[in-house]
């Protein structure tokens, strides 16, 4: 499996009265991730499955990736919490995208590559950034191929 872990793009800051799950992307976040989506498409990425957290900033990020989805796009609350076996068992297909939040996405990365949830904090996972892994989606069974920032991915669009 080729697995793309994608952190949501820049979102509006927390403020009183705004629910955590309703924080939208900023205009900059939208602009940047639109370019990231095009960059991924230009690189030939096609997802069999795309999983995304239903929190608005992740769903809005996933929205830019829907043209790359040839199978299903599915929301899951398992991406709005620390990673679990349940999340790993969802991941099927040859090329899968996952859109979520920090620190949980970093934990997933640490778990899949180093079999260590806490190791996730060692990776610099920018907003709108993408980690590309290959292997079986089991703890310690995947290899990290690339960890790309949104700026790098945006350049693929040119």
């Amino acid at each position, binding site marked *: 499996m080729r697995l793309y872990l994608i952190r949501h793009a820049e979102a509006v800051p927390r403020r009183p009265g705004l*629910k955590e*799950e*309703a924080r*939208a992307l900023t205009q900059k976040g939208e602009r940047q991730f639109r370019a990231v989506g095009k960059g991924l498409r230009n690189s030939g990425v096609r997802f069999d499955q795309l999983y*995304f957290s*239903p*929190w*608005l900033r992740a*769903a809005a990020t*996933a*929205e830019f990736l*829907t043209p790359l989805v040839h199978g*299903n*796009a*599915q*929301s*899951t*609350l*398992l991406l709005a919490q620390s990673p679990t076996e349940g999340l790993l068992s969802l991941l099927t297909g040859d090329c899968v995208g996952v859109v979520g939040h920090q620190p949980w996405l970093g934990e997933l990365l640490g778990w899949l590559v180093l079999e260590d949830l806490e190791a996730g904090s060692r990776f610099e996972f920018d907003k709108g950034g993408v980690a590309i892994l290959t292997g079986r989606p089991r703890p310690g069974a995947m290899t990290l191929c690339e960890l790309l920032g949104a700026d790098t991915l945006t350049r693929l669009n040119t």
Partner: protein
Amino acid sequence: MRNIAGSVFSYDSVRVGLPSCIVEAKTIPLDRWLRHLRHNLSIARECEDPEGVHQVRVATRRIETWLLLAGWHVYRDDLRWLRVEASSARDVDVLLLRAGLPKRLKDDLTDHRRTAYGEFLLAAEDPRLQALIVGLGALPPLAPTVASTRMGRLLAKVLERGKQVSEEQGSLESLHGLRRALRRLRYGLELTGGSTASLKRLQDALGHINDLAVAIRCLDDLGRGIAPAGFRATLQSELSAARPVALQLWSNERDRIRLMVAP
């Protein structure tokens, strides 16, 4: 660009005028249809009133239309999944709702209903549904100006499907396509405060055809021996009689629907 009724036509050139109350409201929220979904999920979970599962499916389609008008693509697969999970239960209900069913057929269908609702209940407890409801609840409201532009596309789709009905001389498939396009337009008009009375009549006539086609398919899926031979023939003859009625209604309403296009 699409060619509709012999003329070159662009979806983006079509706008549907919205009532001033909607334009002044500034936003079209999803809350109402999300509440409709949640309410009917709780009815459907009781497995008694067939309207529950039916309205769950209706709610998914209304929400899908709202997403379409808002330009969202995410959640459409989740909504489709829920609708598919509810479809077997609905198909059996459609047959069971017919008056005068032979007793043996009714008993067999009641057994099948239990199985179909069992499958639906699994979906109703699936975390995917919970995620869908959380996600839909977090979406920002829709701006009427955006809705107006996209309503034009729904209208254009109806006219395109209508042309196919003429070309295919009212084939079941073409009528099915027209019914789906009309349904989206009607739900869009409901969301944006437009009048839907004439669309409803036409949609009901096309829906009757679909119910009969579903009932026949359901009987065939369950095995031909399940019902007396005459029962299937009755359904088939009702279906044959319903087609010209729907075609006549479409012919009557087509021009009125065309006039929905704002200058």
